[in-house]
């Protein structure tokens, strides 16, 4: 019965109710939006960190990380492939790479760089490279002579698509091998260092250059869910000879990023509380005023012999109705604003121009997750109910005398 009463009560003065609801809406919206924004920021940071040839899990020859030379490649990857076939969960994608340091030159310039032999099909699915070709074309699997270079290197070498680069490297037999490659495409990366550091050719092209039969330098695996990473890595470790191979997750490979993510997550929780407190002042204030406006009414109820508890209950119920309406509207608003930014993102360039240092994109695409939304809503609902207790108590303590004085 009192649900109905409360519901009617809140619509008795719609203007007042709308004002209180708007306070809740703006609070819910801001928290939903912030969670999506920060989630998007973290995701872009993680993606950028991982997509530059890291992935979720990597497998190398154990000696490779100490000395990343062609001598420490994995010469018989069939065994590893067999293990991975059995262990990888559904949705996992893997790619193999050959990575060697080379010397690249044209008529006027020369520099050291890392030459990466890739499987164009799989690489595209996993790393930044697939979506970063800004000029020219991506590599075709059969292309033996094509090479992809970063924009910064292209500019430094003063060259263009279709022109030659001479690659010089030590091959599997220890001899110096050199070959001409044609620039097929140019890639952009978040970090200029990446554009200068890496050159991409096809796996077959790399094998030919380096006189390799079937060896590879690394296997990079991307899973479709973060919680699976540790588990899968542990399983691969179980089945591989860990004396020979190193199985590492992105957390091992990017410890600074891991630390940053942890600090950031901690900060987000603090920030939720801060925003909530800011919102809480508004809620308490407005509901308190609503209570005072109704002093006469509450005084009358008390004069009629109503106990304090039913008063608390009815005021609280009203608050909860208002909270619920606000939460629903706030979620909708939050969802809409995230949706609006889905395509173009939020460009931080309007605030600051750089992004290299954190490995974060300039443009943030908010990501709404069920988990975040639930968290936000639960926090707001419970804390909202808690702060509404004060006005409810205050209402229950209004005496008929006090009401008369008004």
């Amino acid at each position, binding site marked *: 019965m009192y649900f109905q009463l409360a519901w009617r009560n809140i619509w008795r003065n719609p203007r007042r109710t709308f004002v209180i609801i708007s306070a809740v809406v703006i609070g819910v919206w801001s928290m939903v939006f912030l969670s999506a924004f920060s989630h998007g920021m973290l995701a872009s940071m993680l993606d950028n960190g991982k997509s530059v040839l890291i992935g979720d899990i990597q497998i190398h020859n154990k000696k490779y990380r100490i000395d990343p030379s062609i001598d420490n490649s994995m010469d018989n990857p069939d065994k590893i492939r067999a293990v991975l076939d059995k262990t990888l969960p559904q949705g996992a994608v893997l790619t193999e790479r050959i990575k060697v*340091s080379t*010397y690249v*030159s*044209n*008529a*006027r310039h*020369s*520099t*050291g760089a890392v030459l990466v032999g890739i499987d164009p099909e799989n690489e595209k699915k996993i790393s930044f490279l697939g979506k970063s070709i800004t000029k020219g074309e991506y590599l075709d699997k059969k292309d033996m*002579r094509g090479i992809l270079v970063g924009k910064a290197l292209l500019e430094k070498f003063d*060259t263009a698509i279709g*022109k*030659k680069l*001479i690659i*010089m*490297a*030590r091959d599997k037999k220890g*001899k*110096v091998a*050199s*070959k*001409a490659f*044609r620039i097929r495409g140019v890639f952009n990366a978040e970090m200029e260092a990446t554009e200068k550091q890496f050159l991409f050719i096809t796996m077959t092209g790399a094998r030919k250059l380096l006189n390799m039969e079937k060896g590879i330098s690394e296997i990079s695996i991307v899973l479709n869910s973060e919680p699976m990473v540790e588990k899968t890595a542990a399983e691969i470790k179980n089945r591989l000879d860990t004396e020979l191979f190193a199985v590492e997750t992105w957390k091992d490979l990017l410890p600074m990023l891991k630390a940053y993510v942890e600090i950031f997550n901690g900060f987000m929780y603090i920030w939720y509380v801060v925003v909530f407190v800011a919102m809480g002042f508004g809620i308490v204030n407005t509901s308190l005023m609503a209570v005072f406006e109704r002093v006469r009414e509450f005084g009358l109820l008390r004069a009629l012999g109503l106990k304090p508890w039913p008063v608390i209950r009815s005021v609280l119920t009203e608050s909860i109705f208002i909270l619920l309406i606000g939460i629903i509207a706030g979620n909708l608003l939050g969802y809409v604003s995230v949706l609006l930014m889905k395509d173009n993102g939020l460009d931080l360039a309007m605030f600051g121009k750089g992004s290299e240092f954190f490995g974060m994109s300039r443009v943030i695409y908010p990501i709404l997750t069920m988990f975040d939304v639930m968290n936000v809503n639960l926090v707001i609902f419970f804390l909202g109910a808690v702060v509404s207790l004060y006005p409810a108590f205050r209402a229950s303590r209004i005496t008929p005398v006090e009401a008369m004085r008004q």
Partner: protein
Amino acid sequence: MYRYKLILSITAIACVFVLMSGQKISAAKDNSGADISGLGSAIVKQAFDYYRGVASISVAEMTIHRAEWERTMKIKAWTRGVHDSLFKIISPAKDKGNGTLKKGDEMWTFNPKVNRTIKLPPSMMSQAWMGSDFSNNDLAKSDTIVKDYTHSVTDVKEKDGLKIFFIESIPHPDAPVVWGMLHFKVREDGIMLSQGFYDEDKILVKELVTTDIKMMGGKLFPAVWKISKQDEKQEYTTIKYLELEFKDSLPSRIFTRAGLKKKIR
């Protein structure tokens, strides 16, 4: 991080010396009569073969010139075929005894002060050694230069009663050479007068010019080789031959690590 050219010593001119250790003058006539591009190849081959031979011993003075700086070294060199070469610094006194041994793709350097022989990693071999303007990439061997390029005679002029062939060489699309074009000026007796190095846009990058052609070691030979960069006119390197002697053969022990360490007279 800081990648700039390692300026070690003697190694750079390896190729120049190898090219120069010529012996038999292969008759241009053997190859003439072919079509125009065949003629071009023949002349280039002849010019490279002119300097190429079984073995040589030479002493040369190398000067590296920069706008604000200049340095001269005297170097003694032994070469055998295109694979083996040994260089030792005679002066300045500070650097005397430093040497480099090149055998095929491998290279060692010796320093008497620390009494160590060090094998150079391949990444360093490909750099412009010794801060000169010569580099290994430039001076190809005759077999690869003939194989990697299409040579055509564009002009023939006569000077002092000798024909001079102007040859334009375009690399094959997949050839592992950085240049987009080479220009040669070769005298009919096989002496190369100049070689121009162009980028893929056919813009001159650097140029090698030989002068002071005189009898040395029993045949006509340009005593001064100068290579200069096109962008920076103030930067050039010259090599001036003081002594040159061609041999049918040199003993193998010269081209060993022991030979590299052996003191120079």
